[in-house]
């Protein structure tokens, strides 16, 4: 794909003083959101696109900071002048959701009631809570309706929730590598990840900040497990096969196979900066997401609340077994049953669930085509 990066960007922190009442019954009395924007909001405020992040994402979606040229945003390849999320045309908004650990109020923030970090006392947040926080962010910018809400994986769930909760405020929804709810197998993976963290002796019931420690081992294991499920069997086979780091068996438990080396590296890298409590919260938000639950599990009834004016683009990847194409098709079928405007693509890419982050020309072409039909 042609186009270029947005270049140097800056993060901002926006304070919201109105309490956020959460799905769990908890309340965030006040909160900050870390936000980045790219491009220019037009006078009619009709060109804004919200990018929702997945499990480990944040507000740094594109570009780089002036003092950190290597630190590219997590979805830089799709955003910028001439790219599908074209900053010459659109005003792109990325945020770190409440509960996050990249600058928005989360478990590592100070609880005003105690003067200490929230830790395990941070209330459980749901996808619908994030959407409410995002709606207030739209209000902050004076945006009545997003031109589009875009997300992959857990981010796609937010786009779907937007279409249900605020049908008049979302003109286009891009729901990529996502699902209308997790399967038992998918919840099971999340629970193993959580158990790794919860049983780490350094977890201290979630109040590890006070102990000057972090459950690094648990978080590392959680990430290693997650990483396996984000890749495809074929891709791992191609990338690592049974390659040995030192050519022959050592008959011990050190790193021998290349895939071990890779996973440990990924685990270490992640555990070095991510907050374990946030990881727990994000996986719970995934598990709880089930917008059809209050409609007796009938997603067709749920999607009847979406607007007939909203256009949907649903995409899945052939090698994604964590959020398989069949799960995306459930969303498509529920939209079709309501006569909604929806396009669906099943994209043949070899990177498993991580495919949604790849700069594949066909995939990006589809996003570009869909967004190209938006009239501002």
């Amino acid at each position, binding site marked *: 794909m042609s186009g270029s990066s947005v270049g140097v960007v800056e993060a901002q922190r926006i304070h919201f003083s109105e309490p956020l009442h959460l799905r769990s019954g908890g309340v965030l009395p006040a909160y900050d959101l870390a936000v980045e924007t790219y491009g220019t909001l037009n006078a009619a405020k009709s060109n804004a696109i919200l990018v929702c992040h997945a499990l480990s994402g944040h507000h740094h979606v594109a570009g780089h900071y002036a003092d950190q040229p290597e630190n590219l945003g997590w979805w830089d390849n799709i955003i910028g002048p001439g790219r599908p999320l074209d900053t010459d045309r659109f005003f792109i908004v990325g945020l770190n959701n409440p509960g996050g650990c990249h600058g928005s109020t989360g478990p590592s923030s100070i609880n005003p009631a105690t003067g200490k970090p929230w830790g395990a006392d941070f209330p459980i947040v749901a996808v619908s809570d994030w959407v409410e926080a995002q709606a207030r962010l739209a209000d902050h910018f004076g945006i009545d309706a997003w031109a589009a809400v875009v997300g992959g994986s857990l981010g796609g769930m937010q786009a779907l929730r937007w279409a249900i909760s605020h049908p008049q405020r979302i003109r286009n929804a891009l729901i990529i590598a996502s699902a209308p709810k997790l399967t038992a197998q998918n919840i099971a993976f999340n629970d193993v990840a959580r158990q790794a963290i919860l049983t780490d002796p350094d977890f201290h019931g979630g109040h590890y900040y006070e102990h000057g420690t972090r459950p690094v081992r648990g978080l590392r294991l959680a990430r290693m497990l997650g990483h396996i499920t984000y890749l495809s069997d074929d891709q791992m086979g191609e990338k690592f096969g049974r390659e040995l780091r030192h050519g022959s068996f050592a008959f011990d438990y050190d790193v021998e196979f290349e895939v071990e080396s890779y996973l440990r590296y990924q685990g270490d890298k992640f555990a070095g900066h991510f907050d374990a409590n946030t990881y727990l919260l994000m996986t719970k938000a995934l598990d709880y997401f089930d917008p059809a639950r209050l409609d007796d599990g009938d997603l*067709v009834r749920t999607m009847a609340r979406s607007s007939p004016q909203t*256009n949907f*683009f649903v995409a899945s990847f052939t090698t994604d077994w964590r959020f398989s194409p069949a799960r995306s*098709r459930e969303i*498509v*079928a529920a939209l*079709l*049953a309501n*006569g909604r*405007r*929806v*396009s*669906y*693509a*099943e*994209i*043949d890419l070899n990177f498993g669930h991580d495919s949604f982050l790849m700069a594949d020309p*066909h995939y990006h*072409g*589809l996003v570009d*085509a*869909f967004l*190209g*039909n938006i009239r501002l």
Partner: protein
Amino acid sequence: MTNAQGRPDFAVIAGWVAPGHRVLDLGCGDGSLLRQLIDARNVQGWGVEIEPANVLAAMRNGINVIQSNLEDGLRDFADDAFDHVVLSRTLQTVRHTEGILNEMLRVGREAVVSFPNFAYWKNLRSVLDGRMPVSEDLPYQWYDSPNVRFFTLLDFEALCAQMGLTVVERRVLDEAGESIAVDAAHDLNFLGSLAVYRLTRAR
């Protein structure tokens, strides 16, 4: 099936749909037919297409397109969701002929089917000359053809009768895309290059 030019069946189909109708086009290609029906007849349209390049082209055309394999049926579509379900020059490429026809009339009130007529006299002459036919409506060589079923008007009508489908209307076109103004089925079978049918299920 990629562009509107040289697609005389499009005009026939456009005449059969009414403004506001919900139309599903199976094997929609780049969405040309739906684009035409939306622009000219103000229908609501959805397409089904398997080829990635066509899915992309249809999306660029502003068409709602679902990437899916027709051989798997229309499982993502609810009963009676559409006024018309169109299968334009595609039936001959589908292996499960009865399956797709049943599915079309499950999800739609009316099925619109067009296909090249193998009994068209030029095709017959070609076979008599010892070669598989290549024509305006059968534009492929035998070794690169996507077509897997070869049949005639009379074959198709016999199948419809056997399946209990009602032919509401039949339009038969010559190679130039002109309607052939004769009534006898055997004559049409000999003179027609492309057949367009409007079908319902007897209820």
